[in-house]
């Protein structure tokens, strides 16, 4: 991506291309079909530093936000499941600890997360608190030198395989969103349980589960940030997470276009490859242009974050647009393949199923519009 890449990013693309071709693409259909978490791939990514890409300290790989977006994009071209595992781990768990954690918390958790010895997750959503995050029912009551947590979280990416969870809970319920705090909960804490595993339309290899907090005692050293600062931490975390999901969506779209191009050059109808028909050409041109626009928005948001500039609006716009593009492009790609596209002989139906989630998680399309509109109406930075 000229304009966003430095030399190292070009070299990193060659690394990602080789890794994805050999270690990710061959397993994508299988982990989808069997709904199994790709533990081996995660181990291999960990060994190469891919679980700590944007962090320079605490054993991070010393990359940046552009490199991080590249990582999720490249993985998602072949397998959106593998993309979101990295995204949830990096954006939603390591990042808030890096941004809001105490020195002690950073020293205790970041090296393990960055080296990929531990996997991370983030838990905000509850059965009756989705976009309305202030309706949280999980509570944290002070007790002794810590807090007692009780409640249920749902739809938690990496749940069941993660070792550390950033968990949001009400410390002052009457204050609504201003009464939420963030906690670092280890999977081994007593009373912490992983509940039902969701059966999903797409990203079926990723582990999405319910979490049950049954009288979990969390020492005060594991309060992330200050008391009642949790909602602010959650919003900031999701701002960055959206760059990851935008990159995932762009990756899915790019992967679908590659598959469609391969097919239309081979598929013969009316004695010629269907690539010769202008309809096919126009469809591909439209898909590629949409995808490139989404890619620019995504890397633009990544660059803003990297340069320490406000990126909340840019990230929401990138995520909104890229998710819509992923849905459009994969739907069109399935159409180009016709009946074959609808079968599991080809990866496009999977890509179309995977694309849908990017319009939903880490804020639905509608939630992105709320974020964007609030920036516009406040008259803040564009």
């Amino acid at each position, binding site marked *: 991506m000229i304009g966003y890449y*430095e*030399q*190292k990013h070009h*070299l*990193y693309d*060659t*690394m990602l291309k*080789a*890794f994805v071709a050999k270690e990710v693409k061959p397993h994508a259909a299988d982990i989808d079909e069997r709904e199994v978490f790709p533990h081996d791939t995660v181990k291999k990514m960990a*060994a*190469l*530093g*891919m679980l*700590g*890409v944007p962090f320079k300290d605490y054993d991070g*790989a*010393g*990359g*940046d936000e552009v*490199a991080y977006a590249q990582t999720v994009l490249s993985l998602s071209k072949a397998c959106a499941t593998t993309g979101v595992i990295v995204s949830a781990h990096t954006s939603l768990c390591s990042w808030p600890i890096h941004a809001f954690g105490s020195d002690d918390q950073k020293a205790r958790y970041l090296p393990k997360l960055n080296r990929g010895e531990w996997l991370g997750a983030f838990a905000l959503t509850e059965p009756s608190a989705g976009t309305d995050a202030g309706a949280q029912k999980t509570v944290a009551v002070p007790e002794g030198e810590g807090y007692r947590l009780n409640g249920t979280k749902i739809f938690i990416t990496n749940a069941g395989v993660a070792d550390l969870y950033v968990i949001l809970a009400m410390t002052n319920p009457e204050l609504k969103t201003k009464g939420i705090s963030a906690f670092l909960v280890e999977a081994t804490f007593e009373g912490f349980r992983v509940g039902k595993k969701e059966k999903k339309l797409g990203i079926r290899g990723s582990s999405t589960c319910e979490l049950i907090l049954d009288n979990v005692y969390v020492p005060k050293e594991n309060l992330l940030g200050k008391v009642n600062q949790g909602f602010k931490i959650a919003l900031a975390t999701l701002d960055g997470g959206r760059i990851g999901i935008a990159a995932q969506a762009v990756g899915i779209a790019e992967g679908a276009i590659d598959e469609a191009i391969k097919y239309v050059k081979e598929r013969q109808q009316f004695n010629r490859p269907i690539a010769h028909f202008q309809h096919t050409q126009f469809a591909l041109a439209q898909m590629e242009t949409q995808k490139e626009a989404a890619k620019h928005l995504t890397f633009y948001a990544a660059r803003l974050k990297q340069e320490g500039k406000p990126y909340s609006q840019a990230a929401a716009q990138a995520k909104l647009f890229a998710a819509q593009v992923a849905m459009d492009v994969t739907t069109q790609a399935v159409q180009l393949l016709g009946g074959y596209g609808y079968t599991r002989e080809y990866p496009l139906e999977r890509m179309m199923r995977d694309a849908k989630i990017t319009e939903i998680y880490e804020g639905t399309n509608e939630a992105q519009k709320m974020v964007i509109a609030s920036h516009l109406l406040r008259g803040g930075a564009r």
Partner: protein
Amino acid sequence: MNILVLVKQVPNTTEMMIDKENGTLIRAGVESIANPDDLTGVELALELKEKTNGHVRVITMGPTQAEDMLRGLYGMGVDDAVLLTDKRFAGSDTWATSNILSAAIKRYPYDLIIAGRQAIDGDTAQVGPQVAEALGLPQVTYVHDVTHYETSSLTVIKSLEEEKLTLRLPLPGLITVLSEAREPRYLNVKDVMTAHQKPLETLTFDDLDLSLDAVGLKASPTRVKRTYTKEIVQKSPVQTLSPEDAATLILKHVVGHH
């Protein structure tokens, strides 16, 4: 252990264009990659480095664009990279190339030199052995595995067509390795991110203890008289057979040859 690895940048294509004037390869416009056998050499070097707390330096001779390849090798984890580049080196055959590489190698400490068996463009398999000769070093070619290392020697398995030999190579020495020996590792994020910040030593003719009659096209004893594309001549008739008959026929031939 100080290890030097000789690496060549080669065109990434099987369809090579040949310059009809002097019979050499046209490299312009073709994507370049690190020669596969050489990457295996780098992999073996990095493994030995990890086991012996050693140091790996890669050396290449080529145009300035070879820097990209060297940055990629930094991304794999090599410690130092050296680029030998000079217009006077252009057109060097394997003898002249070996003279240049040997002169450069003399500048660095080394216990072991590793070269790929051969490059996919020229396929000569001559440079490694010639470097060993020029430096007066013992050598083992066609190395399939390194099974044991000491400060004074290396135990290697040499692969011949029909058999494998286990040999002990006194150090300092040189080996040429086969691609089958190791799958080169992936680049890793940490080394990729710093690859372009690392120093790249660039040496020209003037930096080396060499005379002009030992380098370049004019000094090269190799003369390409003619190059041609091999034509495929069909010698056996085409037979259309049922799968059963085809299998029987193939079996007969296989049994007949062994």
